[in-house]
């Protein structure tokens, strides 16, 4: 068979791609009894040098949270030592099904935070980073300049608070509150 002909080939799950003596199985493939099969709908490609065979999926790629991803979420519930966050956007991609994550007090900022109540309140929009994807709920951190609260709501009247001289102030009732603010506060990320 011509090498070029074999380079790109449309495949569906269960299509035989070759044997392990022939190719090294790559992404989108699996091995059963020494035979390489495709496990997704897409195009099978062979790297001529490394002999690696891969399937480039043409369907949607299922999302799974991974370490290092930057996320947008809403604070759901706050306790003394941690806050629960509903994450709905990861690396700029809107998720069809949001997932829950947790922030521990020790990961809120680079400085000492006594309780989460000093940093987040329910309803806040926060920008955070995933630091743990091994256990669920996934763990987040906001200990960086760009991470933290993007939108805070007044606990007195519910109005969106504005940043006034490094202080969060409610434009309606004038109350001042404490948060772990991101440098992007009030802007979109």
């Amino acid at each position: 068979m011509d090498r070029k002909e074999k380079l790109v080939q449309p495949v569906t799950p269960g299509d035989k791609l070759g044997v392990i003596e022939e190719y090294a199985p790559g992404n989108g493939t699996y091995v059963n009894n020494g035979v390489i099969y495709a496990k997704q709908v897409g195009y099978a490609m062979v790297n001529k040098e490394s002999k690696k065979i891969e399937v480039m999926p043409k369907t949607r790629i299922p999302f799974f949270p991974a370490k290092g991803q930057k996320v947008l979420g809403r604070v759901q519930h706050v306790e003394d030592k941690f806050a629960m966050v509903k994450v709905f956007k990861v690396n700029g991609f809107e998720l069809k099904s949001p997932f829950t994550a947790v922030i521990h007090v020790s990961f809120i900022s680079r400085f000492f935070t006594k309780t989460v109540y000093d940093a987040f309140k329910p309803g806040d929009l926060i920008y955070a980073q995933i630091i743990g994807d091994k256990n669920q709920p996934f763990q987040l951190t906001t200990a960086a300049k760009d991470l933290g609260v993007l939108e805070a709501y007044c606990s007195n009247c519910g109005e969106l608070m504005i940043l006034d001289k490094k202080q969060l102030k409610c434009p309606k009732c004038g109350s001042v509150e404490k948060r772990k603010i991101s440098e992007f506060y009030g802007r979109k990320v």
Partner: protein
Amino acid sequence: MVTVQKLINEEGLRVDGRRLDELRPIRMEVGLLANADGSAYIEHGKNKIIVAVYGPKEAQPKHVSLHDRAVVRCRYHMAPFSTDERKSPAPSRREIEISKVVREALEPVIFTEYFPRSMIDIFIEVLQSDGGSRCAAITASSLALADAGIPLRDLVVGCAVGKVEGKLVLDPSDIEDKLGEADMPIAFIPVLGKISLLQMDGMFTEEEFIKALNMAKEACMKIYALQKQTLKEKYLQVEKEVRESLTLKE
């Protein structure tokens, strides 16, 4: 409804004009629902079934989640207008059973271990029912799973064999199912060579059973080819582009 005395005529043709080993016409479609992660539609004879797949997503409620793999949930539901007489929309005993067997037929092909603590939802809605709807549901569900981009070992195919007037008939329709002597739906995984669903009501002799099983497997391979063609058709337009872009790069 017309009363039928003979289900197989002198020429060996069935009520709907098929030969004994002939399938009903099948049409499939994928990716028709915008809000589902994956979807498929199948017309298998008079069966009209729509399948939506959601996930892998966070398990809800949390206590059902498994620490080492995804949970697969399945809901087979018949629309109230899908039968001759109105069917109550509440899940019946039959629907609960089919939900369970369809889930168990599909689970062996899904790489659930890639998505620990998450959940995959499969919703099967029967818009019009005929004989062998659970087989058609399995066929469509595996297409919807592939459309959702969930890694699969293979596609699962369902097909039934029945016994009518002492003869084995492939893919029995509703009347043949009700008036016939036996009905055996199977789900087949071609690559693994395994059967993930085998049910039977009525009676088969041992020889009949072996013959029926082979008939069903053969028919499954025909449907399997159709499934692959459906998936390829959906992505065929891009094939050209990829080929062109690759030849340009070289």
